[in-house]
């Protein structure tokens, strides 16, 4: 009897082993040391696959991608593995600061980067990475309002955050961002200016403002602004400049406004995790991506402003698109960087509260 039970246990163990092998197989094949491959962990819409394909052809280095959809995901994954497994990551501004604090990044060897003099000085030496010891800014975008041009020229409203928050003067519908970090940040900016963090009293005011705003919100959507504008569901949508780039081509009735009090920008930078042993290959990739042709190709595909000073293509541009490029050349006195104004739990609580009430 004991023999039979032991045998059965052995069979169970064998099957469990098989199942575990199947489950962990992707991880095993991923971690296998491959001399000529670099692993990139990035947003899904930041690197142009055709540019990468050309890089692979030219240099023979293979680039493998893994994607994340939020900075939180990047932070958690990197903290969990200590940076193992990836050779290049592309965090946003505040996430970058976090990673540097946690000592997860490798210092850059600027002598290996051939393009440094083409960088836009406005983006260098920021609070999250003084001296750019760990990161190279790659792309950036501005948060602004996409507007129904006809409505706003007719009603002569000045570009201001009042257009999305002042209940008394708003008699139209807006499309609000669906990201609670952005929403609380904008609300806090409207009420208190460029503060770093909020105490609980101020947090309550932010919550009240957002709750009041709900009465004239058509929908919460971060990326459908142009759709709502084109169907006439709303007259104003909070959107990002990269998104609007494609919009201007398709919908000439949509224009943009930048609030005069100032607005927010977000910067995506390249960084190398500490445990990576393939910097030589990674530097090759970075140098390739900062070549003029790559920069312009990326701009055409995704619409992010490049972090270099290369002139952007200005043929066949609509007047709105030209205005947008001009706006991006201004100095950064009115541009603030994205950050979290409260703990993540508090932001989530406020967001759930705002949305669950009618």
């Amino acid at each position, binding site marked *: 009897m004991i023999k*039979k039970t032991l*045998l*059965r246990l052995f*069979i*169970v163990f064998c*099957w*469990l082993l098989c*199942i575990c092998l199947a489950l962990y197989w992707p991880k095993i094949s991923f971690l296998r040391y491959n001399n000529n491959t670099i692993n990139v962990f990035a947003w899904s819409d930041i690197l142009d696959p055709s540019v990468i394909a050309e890089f692979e052809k030219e240099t023979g280095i293979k680039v493998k991608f893994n994607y994340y*959809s*939020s900075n*939180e*995901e990047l*932070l*958690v994954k990197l903290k969990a593995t200590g940076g193992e497994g990836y050779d290049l990551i592309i965090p946003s501004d505040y996430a970058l600061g976090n990673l540097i604090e946690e000592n997860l990044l490798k210092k850059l060897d600027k002598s290996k980067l051939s393009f440094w003099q083409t960088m836009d000085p406005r983006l260098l030496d920021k609070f999250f990475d003084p001296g750019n010891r760990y990161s190279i800014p790659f792309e950036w975008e501005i948060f602004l309002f996409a507007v129904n041009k006809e409505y706003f020229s007719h009603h002569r409203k000045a570009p201001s955050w009042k257009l999305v928050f002042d209940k008394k003067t708003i008699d139209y519908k807006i499309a609000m961002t*669906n990201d*609670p970090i952005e929403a609380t940040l904008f609300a806090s900016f409207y009420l208190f200016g460029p503060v770093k963090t909020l105490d609980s009293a101020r947090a309550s005011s932010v919550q009240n403002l957002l709750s009041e705003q*709900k009465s004239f*919100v*058509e*929908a*919460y*959507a971060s990326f459908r602004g142009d759709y709502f504008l084109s*169907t*006439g*569901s709303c007259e104003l949508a909070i959107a990002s400049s990269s998104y609007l780039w494609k919009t201007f081509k398709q919908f000439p009735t949509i224009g943009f406004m930048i609030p005069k009090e100032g607005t927010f920008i977000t910067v995506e930078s390249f960084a190398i995790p500490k445990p990576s042993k393939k910097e030589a290959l990674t530097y090759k990739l970075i140098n390739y991506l900062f070549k003029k042709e790559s920069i312009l190709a990326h701009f055409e595909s995704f619409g992010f402003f490049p972090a270099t000073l290369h002139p952007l293509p200005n043929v066949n541009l609509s007047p709105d698109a030209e205005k947008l490029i001009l706006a991006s050349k201004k100095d950064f006195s009115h541009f603030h960087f994205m950050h979290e104004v409260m703990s*993540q*739990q508090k932001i*989530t*609580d406020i*967001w*759930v*509260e705002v*949305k*669950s*009430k009618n």
Partner: protein
Amino acid sequence: MKFTSKKSSEFPFIVGIPAILWQILLFYLPLVLIVGTSFIAISDSGSLEGFTFEKIGVFLNPTYIRVILSSVLLGLANATICFCIAYPLAYFMAFRAHKFKNLLLFLLLIPFWTNFLLHVYAWFFVLERNGFLNNLLKTLGLIQDSIPFMNSLFATMIMMVYYYLPFMVLPIYSSLEKFDYKLIEASLDLGAGRFKTLRRIILPLSLGGIRAGFFLVYIPSFGEFAIPELMGGDKQMFVGSVVARYILGDQTGSLGAAFTVLSSVILCVSSILLYFVLNLIFKRRGSHAVKN
């Protein structure tokens, strides 16, 4: 693996056990795990600290309870509306359709077998300000300006009913199909009107199908979050939306598990209540002579 003839009697076991193993490993173990992580505190360094109600406690405030209750209401409303539309349809298919029974069933299956997100997309075209419905009403001269159907609770409800209708129709249809029509004839012959027959005979005997339909609609509707986001402009939060926000926000993963556990408990309780309420409404009274 080769076995001698003595051990070949274990071959069925080798073959049969993976199914059970799979189920335990990938279904019961994860469920036990989320219940566990909801109640066990983990210190910052990663060591287990002990039993705690704190995580569940985070959600025992009016905001989150309100979210859970709106999900309950959404699910119940959806199930009720589906039932009101589904029952006549199932009845027609079972008793009145005769030759066309299979065709009707087939036509019901096609939308059921198409990707649900495409249905959501389809309704954009119908309900938008310059969509089909508004254009129709304008052509008929009934309205001047477009009615904003989209991004509202109305749009959410329409989509929910639209998607879950087959789930309600199919169980009711299959229980009605097994029905012996002679019972209805007998009831009519004995003088009961159509309505009384419906109430006293048909409804109680199809209770099994009605129950199955209600649960097949109520339970998934409870966890729904894509439809409120896309059709309702994400202006209302339901259980699914909160869970998605917590779980995919990663740093608060175990809190997400706690909220899921809490919502599941309330779902369980409400389902049991629903079961009794359905019995109360539809069960046959008095007559014991009719067998199920």
